[in-house]
């Protein structure tokens, strides 16, 4: 399958009237994992929010096609139902709503949208427990309110757990490695690798080469000032590690 899951062409986007993305072009073929690196504030999370459809992130020019469809015409819930998943850089804490209640609502909303039968409580629990075990997470996570009181690492694991349950077609992981200890990094990376499939694509945003030893990308892109300034194979990450971003952004390193 050489079909592209995601095609972004000349994307310009503003946040509160400030242009953050300034002509970003990116193609993500089916089955591939692409990494995106770039300095703080370069627009990586902005891109992830634009893909997920967050309010206040306005596309002023360019287009995004997802499986040949105009992504920008869809509301956030419709995008998720169509198979887009964003692992948040900063997962939101929601007191009073149990993880299991939320995730069951999400799984079944997606199944409904695809015309599949909904999971009953038993089937849901069985699947959830299996995925939790694979991610070495305690089952009491299910009854806890969403992300409330979770450590940084637990929040990131919870994102990967949700991703595993929702089996997206396009997963965008925004710094899912930050805040993870070395063992957790391996567990989470294994979780992500298990999801690699010929009909599934991933965009992995990270600052660290270390993650890319575990999740080996097909391509690496460097984002700076709202534009992709370099693309290459996995050796690009090593080069970045060595030289810093300055060589790619044409600026002096801040350090």
């Amino acid at each position, binding site marked *: 399958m050489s079909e592209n899951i995601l095609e972004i062409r000349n994307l310009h986007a503003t946040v509160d009237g400030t242009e953050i993305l300034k002509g970003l072009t990116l193609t993500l073929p089916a089955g591939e994992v692409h990494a995106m690196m770039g300095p703080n504030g370069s627009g990586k999370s902005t891109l992830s929010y634009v893909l*997920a*459809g*967050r*309010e206040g992130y306005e596309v002023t020019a360019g287009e995004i096609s997802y499986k040949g469809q105009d992504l920008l015409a869809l*509301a*956030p*819930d419709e*995008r*998720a*139902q169509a198979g887009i*998943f*964003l692992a*948040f850089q900063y*997962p*939101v804490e*929601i*007191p*009073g*709503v149990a993880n299991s*209640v*939320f*995730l069951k*609502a*999400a799984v079944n*909303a*997606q199944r409904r*949208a695809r015309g599949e039968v909904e999971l009953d409580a038993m089937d849901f629990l069985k699947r959830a427990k299996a995925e939790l075990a694979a991610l070495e997470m305690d089952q009491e996570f299910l009854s806890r*309110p*969403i992300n409330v009181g979770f450590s940084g690492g637990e929040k990131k694991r919870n994102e990967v757990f*949700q991703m595993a349950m*929702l089996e997206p077609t396009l997963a965008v992981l925004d710094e899912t490695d930050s805040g993870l200890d070395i063992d957790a990094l391996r567990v989470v990376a294994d979780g992500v690798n298990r999801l690699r499939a010929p009909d599934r694509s991933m965009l992995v945003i990270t600052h660290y080469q270390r993650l890319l030893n575990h999740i080996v990308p097909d391509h690496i892109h460097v984002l700076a000032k709202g534009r992709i300034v370099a693309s290459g194979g996995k050796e690009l990450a090593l080069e970045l590690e060595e030289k810093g971003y300055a060589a790619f952004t044409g600026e002096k390193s801040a350090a």
Partner: protein
Amino acid sequence: MNETAPETATTAQAHLRAFDGLRPALPGAGLDWVEALRTDALGRFEDAGLPNRRLEDWKFTTLAALDRVAFAPGTQAAVTPDAPLPELSPAAARLVFVDGRFDESLSEIYAPADGVTVTTLVTALAKDASALEGQLSRASDPAGALWDLNAAFMADGAVIRLADGAALDQPVHLIFFSSGAANRANHIRNVIALGAGARANVVETYISATDTLGPGFTSAVTDIALADGAALIHARVQDESLRTVHAARAVVSVGGEAEYAGFALALGGEVSRQETDIAFTAPGGRARLMGAYLGRGRQLLDHTTRVDHAVPHCTTEELFKGVLDERAHGVFQGLIRVAPHAIGTDARQRNQALLLSERAVADTKPELEILADDVKCAHGATVGDLDADALFYLMARGVPEAEARRLLIAGFAGDVIERFDRGAVGAYLSDCVARWQDRGTGDGHA
């Protein structure tokens, strides 16, 4: 010149007129102390009249509905409930009162326990009136004309007493059903007394007929005395029809190292006022006062709390949460008084309201009177819309907006319920909130 307007009777007038005729049929008739208590209360009521908005305590909440309709007390239950009664399980007992009168056929005591008495005010006053004298008289201390009216006309209610060390692990469920027929006023008086170290759970649910024709007035006072080391979990669910005026008061004395945990849930009613009065009587007492108010249409839902830290080293934790849609109006008033010698007091109070519509209103009035040094007191109030980040997070997982909003609202109220109780009582409160959500706007709830 002066034309006399046709006289529309008010609730106050209807009660004053009914008193002498009704009196022989009220419990405790013929007992001097009960008669005196009723007469004194009626006298104070006659002097003061029902509270109006010129009183500081009633700044936000109007009882004008009681002037528009002449609600009158009665003796007979008008109807049997036409709706399924709410289920709380497991429960130790269920006592059902219809239009303020005990209905034995609908009631059941599942698991009587040693040292535990569960009965009615009518029976208790007939069998062993002296045991009630202290507490009944106490709650009739002047607390405002609204409560004087209750003292003058109290007709029935539950009496729950636990001996020292006795325990009721499963809740006692008290259900008060009002028919709303014939502009009926129901005056309910419950008495709860826990001996030293005793523990109990009590839930009161107030509901109305689904096809009620007329408006109703419910007045309910629950008098609670906790001896040293006793612990009570006490929830009050107000889910009456939207044509009901509901006025309820819990008056609680908390002994040394005793703990009162109270939850007041307001869902129904045209006007609802739920008061809680706490008096610590010995050091080391704890009060956890929590509640939620969920309103739509033009409902007015008022929670008023007064906590008297008259002794040292007592703790108060208050948390109330409101969800107000359409033109609903929520009121929270919280008075915390710390006496000069009440050192080591720790009192915290929070009220959080969600406004789901531009026309909804939330009023908060905290009042801290701190006359002691070396105390920790804090209060806070927030008013806002649903958290946009949380809404986006849920939608980004595929949950449609309407369902996401529903989850967040349930979660907002669920948070305070969870902090209150994670057992059968908490589960029951969550069910009540879910039923409120299912009713939706427009409201099939008569």
